């Protein structure tokens, strides 16, 4: 139990003043700007937007600056900010099939229609620190080539045409889309809620769980059917306007995992799938998300359930790093009253123990 404390105002004020000073660092070193963070630490901004669950590059950059680069603190700040604005409604679902593709790879088909586009990637780099980047490095202009006009259908759509992969579940008529920011979680949770939870879940947590499925804790034999990153258009049905208005575009990463077959006496075997979607270029996040999404479907697909990644309540209750850090970090707040009562109890128990021992010793001496 936590009992409130009073006092310490002056010390707290001065501690925050010291924090602001330390945040600024050496004042002879130029201050970092939001544009610099957004442009040059772009993947950090993408992560804060994804897990902060708010698409706004500038706010995410501000959060990273304010949090001194502590990503979970930055995510916390963004989550708190979103509570200050009214919600106008929900957008039309984005169409990732019409993404303006910046990167698109498949580990299952080398000749995928629309082609494989590496885009800006760390893949195939040697992971050697580059001293040139330390200061004043001016990169070459990117190479250009004639862009193909061919469509880039999702790999899963291509497999789906031949019935080789299970179709995506379709919307259930008028059933509302689950929203865990409006209703508290309850179990079992439908897949829409699970995906929302995973989308804002901690990358490290999902990465570890995804990895655990590969190592045998709920294995489901994945292939990265497709990973794509690029811009998608967003539309919002505005009642006052009377039609779906374009809001502009956002950057998204999508991962389609293709997993081992399912089938029965009545249904032909086909690949099953796991899905990942996140803001910005968030490849590790979407791959991990897709692995865990698929693992959480074990029960639905008639697989043995037992591994941590297959336990919906375990995964969804511990994926949110703002919740996790809140509960872990609250331990450092004053718990004096709590501790005093524990201390009182412990002293009493020790006294009883000592008295009992004394009585035994006296009895032994008398005998």
């Amino acid at each position, binding site marked *: 139990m936590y009992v409130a404390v009073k006092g310490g105002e002056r010390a707290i004020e001065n501690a925050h003043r010291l924090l602001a000073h330390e945040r600024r660092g050496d004042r002879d070193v130029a201050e970092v700007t939001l544009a610099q963070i957004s442009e040059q630490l772009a993947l950090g901004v993408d992560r804060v937007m994804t897990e902060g669950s708010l698409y706004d590059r500038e706010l995410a950059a501000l959060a990273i600056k304010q949090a001194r680069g502590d990503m979970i603190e930055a995510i916390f700040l963004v989550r708190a900010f979103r509570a200050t604005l009214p919600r106008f409604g929900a957008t039309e679902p984005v169409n990732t099939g019409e993404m303006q593709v910046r990167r698109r790879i498949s580990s299952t088909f080398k000749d995928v229609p629309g082609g494989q586009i*590496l885009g800006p990637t760390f893949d195939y780099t040697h992971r050697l620190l580059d001293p040139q980047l330390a200061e004043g490095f001016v990169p070459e202009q990117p190479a250009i080539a004639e862009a193909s006009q061919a469509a880039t259908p999702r790999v899963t759509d291509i497999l789906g045409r031949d019935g080789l992969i299970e179709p995506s579940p379709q919307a259930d008529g008028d059933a509302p889309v689950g929203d865990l920011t409006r209703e508290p979680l309850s179990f079992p949770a439908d897949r829409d809620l699970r995906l929302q939870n995973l989308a804002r879940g901690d990358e490290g947590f999902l990465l570890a769980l995804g990895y655990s499925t590969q190592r045998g804790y709920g294995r489901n034999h994945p292939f990265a059917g497709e990973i794509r990153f690029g811009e998608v258009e967003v539309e919002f049905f505005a009642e006052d306007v009377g039609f779906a208005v374009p809001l502009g575009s956002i950057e998204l990463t999508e991962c389609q995992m293709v997993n081992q077959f399912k089938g029965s006496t009545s249904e032909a075997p086909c690949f099953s799938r796991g899905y990942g979607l996140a803001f910005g270029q968030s490849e590790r996040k979407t791959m991990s998300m897709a692995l865990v999404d698929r693992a959480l479907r074990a029960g639905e697909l008639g697989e043995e359930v037992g591994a941590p990644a297959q336990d919906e309540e375990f995964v969804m209750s511990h994926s949110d790093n703002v919740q996790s850090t809140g509960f872990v970090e609250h331990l450092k707040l004053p718990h004096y009253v709590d501790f005093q009562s524990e201390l009182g109890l412990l002293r009493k128990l020790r006294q009883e123990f000592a008295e009992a021992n004394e009585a035994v010793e006296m009895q032994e001496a008398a005998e």
Partner: protein
Amino acid sequence: MSLTGPDSKQAQRKAAMTVLAHSAAADIAGRLAAIAVPSHQNLREPENGLVMLRGRIGGDGAPFNLGEATVSRAAVRLASGEVGFGYTLGRDAHKAQMIALCDAMVQSAALSGEVETKVIAPLRVAMNAERARKAAESAATRVDFYTMVRGEG
């Protein structure tokens, strides 16, 4: 769809809104400065808010809530009566107001030609050029993997 009916007007408004939402506020302001902006008033004061962005399970299935985005919106009425709406991602209320103003002008028989040629069209050229630049950069990274032993796939 008829070329003059309400559907084509709606398509024209939507096409203009797409270009404007993709453009930087400073670029829209620069283009608007080149035309005589009609007198107008705010029907709704520009305001910031959120929309819940939705994806689809598997990319093509039932919708799910991915996360929110900041949005700014505004509505203006021209002295001649047309009501325009402005919606854009981000928190730039002035941009939303300029989009609303353009939307009202697009609906005005007297002004739609000028706003199309002097504001929307040049912004569309810039938007398409930016898209083409990105597509050309991506195309240069297109890869042809080949398997060492030629097989089925």
